């Protein structure tokens, strides 16, 4: 900038002031963006911890990478109206779309090797309002906080067994999940699994009453226990083949059971189960009517972000839905940008 003549002494002070304003603004911006805080748990760091040593599953979800799509119906029985004014609780049938999946970052994982099985679901009201959820089959979550989940991923990724031992000492709540993983029976079908929200949410009814709840999809199919050794003998995709065949012969059903917390129940900690005596309300049935491979199926492009909620459902003091939303969004951004690496069966997408 060309100044008229030399800057006067008083201008020098002003110039310094301007530089200070700009410098402080830029520093505040950098701080807010986390550029000065390498210790902050960002979605990028969570995704780095999820990434296997062999590299990220390009074009796929960064976790629960292996899955298969379904479509069907949510049949509300009307009982949910008492708890939440969500439109899909009004007695009726609502289109549902979802994805059976495995808790692994490997889209080509052998089914028998993955302990955690999941179900992503989207239910749409008549006016298009959507409710998305992502549930898994263990009865409790592994840890209490997103930070502890990051620590778990880091410890599990280390070859040194002491890393996992140290993690367990620091996060004793992990014991309940570990016990389930070790001793709960396996099944040979997605259709025989329960899928649990684990996170708590708040239901608000038409009168404005609020209740903290968790919910589960309880299978109509009877679980048939099977050893992991038996499963090892099956093909790498036996779960996908099984669910495809089952649904072809008959729709598969799950009852959606809402559990209502009592005051004082640990709503913020998904690693802690609520007492069995808590009130349970059956609000409807998920009917899975059609299975489609993920590669060109309707679930592929959906981010089952558990904070996409209808009016009448909101997040609670559970810190996980926000963390999941943040990390799922990043995972979606990444896989969308890597679409060329995703093995679509048809021609390249325009």
């Amino acid at each position, binding site marked *: *900038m*060309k*100044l*008229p003549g030399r*800057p006067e002494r008083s*201008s020098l002070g*002003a*110039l310094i*002031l*301007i530089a200070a*304003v*700009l410098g402080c*603004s*830029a520093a*505040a*911006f950098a701080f*807010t*963006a*986390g550029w000065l805080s390498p210790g*902050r*748990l*960002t*979605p*990028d760091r*969570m995704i780095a911890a999820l990434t296997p040593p062999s590299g990220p599953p390009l074009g796929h979800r960064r976790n629960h990478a292996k899955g298969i799509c379904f479509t069907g119906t949510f049949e509300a029985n009307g009982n949910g109206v008492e708890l939440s004014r969500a439109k899909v609780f009004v007695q009726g049938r609502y289109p549902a779309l979802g994805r059976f999946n495995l808790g692994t970052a490997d889209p080509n994982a052998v089914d028998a090797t993955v302990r955690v099985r999941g179900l992503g679901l989207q239910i749409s009201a008549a006016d*298009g*309002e*959507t409710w998305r959820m992502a549930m898994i089959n263990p009865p409790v979550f592994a840890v209490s906080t*997103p930070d502890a989940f990051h620590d778990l991923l880091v410890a599990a990724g280390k070859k040194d067994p002491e890393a996992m031992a140290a993690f367990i000492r620091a996060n004793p709540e992990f014991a309940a999940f570990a016990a389930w993983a070790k001793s709960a029976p396996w099944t040979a079908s997605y259709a025989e699994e329960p899928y649990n929200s684990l996170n708590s949410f708040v239901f608000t009814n038409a009168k404005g009453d609020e209740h903290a709840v968790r919910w589960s999809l309880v299978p109509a199919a009877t679980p048939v226990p099977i050893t992991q050794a038996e499963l090892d003998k099956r093909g790498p995709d036996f779960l996908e083949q099984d669910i495809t065949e089952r649904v072809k012969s008959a729709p598969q059903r799950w009852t959606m059971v809402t559990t209502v917390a009592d005051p004082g129940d640990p709503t913020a900690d998904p690693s802690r189960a609520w007492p069995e005596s808590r009130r349970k309300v059956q609000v409807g049935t998920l009917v899975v009517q059609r299975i489609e491979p993920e590669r060109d199926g309707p679930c592929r*492009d*959906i*981010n089952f*972000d558990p*904070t*996409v909620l209808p*009016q009448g459902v909101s*997040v609670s*003091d559970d*810190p996980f*839905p*926000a*963390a999941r*939303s*943040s*990390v799922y969004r*990043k995972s*979606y*951004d990444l*896989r*969308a*940008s890597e*679409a060329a690496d995703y093995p679509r069966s048809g021609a390249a*997408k*325009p």
Partner: protein
Amino acid sequence: MTGAPHRFAPIQRLLHWLMAFCIIAMLFIGVGMVSTVAPKYLPLILIHKTLGVALLILVLARLALRLRLGAPPLPADLPPAIKLGARLSHLLLYGFMIVMPLLGLGMLWAAAYPVVLFGGIEIPALLPQSDRAHTLLWNAHVYLGLAFFALVLLHVAAALFHALVRRDDVFATISPLPQEERMNPAE
């Protein structure tokens, strides 16, 4: 133009400062929310979406006012290169203000996210899901957002330069303070 205003009209000054505050908040919220997994992520993103749509409406009103009411002339003694820079930077600021909310909405639509604002207001999607469109719009929103912040800093620097170094009347044209119209004697 003869009879050009001496200052921006009060409604223009009000909009300028209201939007300045909101835009700076938006830029900070934007970089803050995408770098956290804490519970504040959800309220931040809700504010970002709601305020973004509100700012889109406000900038259209502001643009209409600007086209109708005009702007005070720049000081006659300002070097032509600086004048050009001032005009270009204002043009760019308007461009960012209009484009950023549209890119934000577009990237959400192209990712098949429902766009729900504060109060449950849902904006219907005008784009189908598309990996390619999402990636393009998302990148544009991020990098243009950073460029927008840089331009805002430049704008602040220029304003302070006019007010503190040149001590011309440029800052007074947009100043939020009531001004003693003829009490502006040269030193």
